């Protein structure tokens, strides 16, 4: 262990020598790349290049969206602010001498280092980031309105220059729907996982740390919820409200996911609560709530982060499954699951309807899984050394 630590220390000593200050200021991420932080560097550089490319190639659209002539003002604003943010970050860091040092506590530093060393995880993280930007910028990136229909007599066109991924059963551009679908599918997945992780962390940590009847009651609930196949529970819950809105989907997907998280973090909290620093904090007379939030939860978060990353993939697949059954995302929102479900009518003649949506799901889930794997190995030093 000590050996590799020293290796990194040596890297860190190196500075942005040889790169002109103006280049570092102008090209975000360059400074980080030169000072041995490839992860941050490539992330900044990639984001910058992507945003700049979008801005330059779709400047008309961005301007129109900003002025409110066409929809997508939010996306345009995000594009401009994102670009400004990345650039100002570069200017800021170039204005200081030497490398920035990000202060991280020791375990997190180890995580970042091992994560950066895992090529798959880094690739996955970049993919997810890219997909995230695609989702945010969908209105600007999409060549057409995802809801605009063409003449019905000319529907179901195969991929062509006019429609890169073809058109669907009412002659809408599949690429545009796919891009907008990223918003729905990713949005639901991320929000649901965020909800589940928050809820699961709070309840699980409280149960594990405080114990007693709260623990028993919560774990009984957890066991009960986990005893019903999740998809079945989801069908019933969605049905119970009748009209599956996007918010509802986020809620039910989140509310059926938290028990898993709670179970994980409870186990962590159980082991953390006997550690010296928790005992010491208790001995100092801090309230149990304070100990819970200041000590127990931060030290139990590891598995939650991993579970969240893997959960994003699962949730995308689940949402697709629900939509496939017709109880998920409702039209006209084009989620990827909906696109597969609707496209299967034409699977024999118009393969492009199901194929691209399916590949989008596979790609996203692979990326989420690679990130999850990277995090898992990063959090577990032993596993990290195996690669």
């Amino acid at each position, binding site marked *: 262990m*000590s*050996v590799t630590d*020293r290796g990194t220390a040596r890297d860190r000593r190196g500075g942005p020598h040889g790169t002109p200050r103006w280049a570092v200021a102008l090209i975000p991420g360059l400074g980080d790349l030169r000072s041995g932080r490839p992860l941050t560097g490539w992330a900044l550089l990639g984001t910058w290049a992507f945003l700049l490319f979008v801005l330059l190639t779709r400047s008309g659209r961005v301007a129109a969206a900003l002025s409110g002539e066409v929809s997508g003002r939010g996306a345009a604003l995000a594009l401009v602010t994102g670009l400004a943010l990345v650039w100002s970050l570069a200017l800021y860091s170039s204005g200081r001498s030497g490398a920035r040092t990000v202060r991280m506590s020791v375990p997190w530093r180890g995580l970042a280092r091992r994560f950066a060393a895992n090529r798959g995880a880094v690739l996955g993280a970049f993919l997810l980031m890219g997909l995230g930007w695609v989702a945010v910028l969908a209105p600007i990136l999409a060549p057409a309105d995802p809801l605009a229909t063409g003449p019905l007599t000319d529907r179901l066109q195969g991929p062509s220059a006019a429609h890169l991924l073809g058109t669907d059963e009412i002659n809408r551009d599949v690429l545009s729907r796919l891009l907008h679908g990223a918003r729905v599918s990713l949005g639901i997945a991320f929000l649901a996982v965020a909800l589940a992780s928050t809820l699961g962390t709070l309840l699980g940590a409280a149960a594990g740390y405080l114990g007693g009847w709260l623990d028993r009651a919560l774990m009984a609930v957890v066991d009960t919820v986990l005893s019903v196949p999740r998809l079945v529970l989801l069908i019933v819950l969605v049905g119970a409200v009748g009209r599956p809105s996007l918010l509802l989907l986020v809620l039910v997907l989140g509310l059926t996911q938290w028990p898993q998280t709670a179970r994980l973090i409870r186990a962590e909290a159980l082991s953390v609560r006997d550690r010296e620093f928790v005992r010491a904090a208790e001995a100092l007379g801090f309230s149990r709530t304070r100990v819970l939030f200041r000590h127990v939860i931060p030290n139990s978060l590891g598995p939650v982060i991993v579970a969240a990353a893997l959960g994003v993939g699962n949730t995308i697949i689940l949402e697709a499954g629900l939509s496939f059954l017709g109880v998920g995302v409702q039209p006209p929102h084009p989620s990827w699951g909906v696109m597969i479900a609707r496209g299967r009518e034409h699977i024999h003649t118009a393969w492009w309807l199901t194929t691209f949506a399916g590949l989008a799901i596979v790609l996203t889930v692979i990326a989420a899984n690679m990130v999850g794997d990277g995090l898992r190995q990063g959090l577990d030093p032993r596993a990290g*050394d195996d690669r």
Partner: protein
Amino acid sequence: MTAEGTAAATPLVSVESLTLRAGRDPAAPVLVDRVSLEIAAGESVGLVGESGCGKTLTVLAMAGLLPADVSKAAESRVLFRGRPIEACEPSPLGREIGFVFQDPAGSINPVLRVGHQIAEVVRTLKGTSRSDAHARSLELLAEVGIADPAAKARRFPGELSGGERQRVGVALALAGDPALLIADEPTTGVDMIVQEQLLTLIEGLRERRGMALVLVSHDLAVVAEVCDRVEVVYAGEIIERGAVDRVLTDPRHPYTQGLIRCLPGRAGHGVRVAAIPGAVPVPGAWPPGCRFRPRCAHAHDRCQASPGLLLLPDARAARCWLVNEGGAP
């Protein structure tokens, strides 16, 4: 008889210029530095030194058991009965070399029954039938002094006491009737009484079976009790060697002298190795020249150059400039 004659001529194990590094990179820090030693059949040798000085890695290399993240330099050679150990077929592990590990709890599979594990090794090494292997495992348990072997054989390791577990570890090492037993800190983590019993057991086994023994310990007293010869290791190097009684009575290296001063009975109870100020430098941070220099009371300008292992009469050797000046300070 001729075989025995040959064995007497070639040492059982000879380690030549063993250099080990942490990782594959030739620039990686050195953990063991050009160690050479020989072990003859039937001989018992102790390796002594503070933790982190490379004892364990040296014996692991002897058995060909180096962990994947440690690499051996190209010029280093480990010969077993005169042949490179990697080239021996079948591997002498278990058959010729028995290894008793530092941590008895960790080195025995916790999910398999004790008797089953011993019998498994017997069957693999000796090719005996299942029932013979079982009978042999009971004999081995009895040999290592476990009372009621039949009952204990049915237990899981977790159900045994620490001393019993280590005895099982010894039995596992003996299953192939090896010519060399390597015991790496076999008495760590057990109390004084059990330690005494284990040492007596190992000594008795060696005598009865005529095995060679390599005993690794940080405790000179343990080595003194069991071994004929001692090799003192410091910072990846052998710094003194010789017959145990000679080294104990007449240590030549200031480090050995420090170790002896720490022995209970000599410096009184409660005094620990702290009698030598400072700590063993970590690999990669070894000072140039004599590596003991920063902690040595006799350090001198010339110590900035390495003294080399100086051969002395009676098969003794020491790595200190003082030795040349005719004796201990």
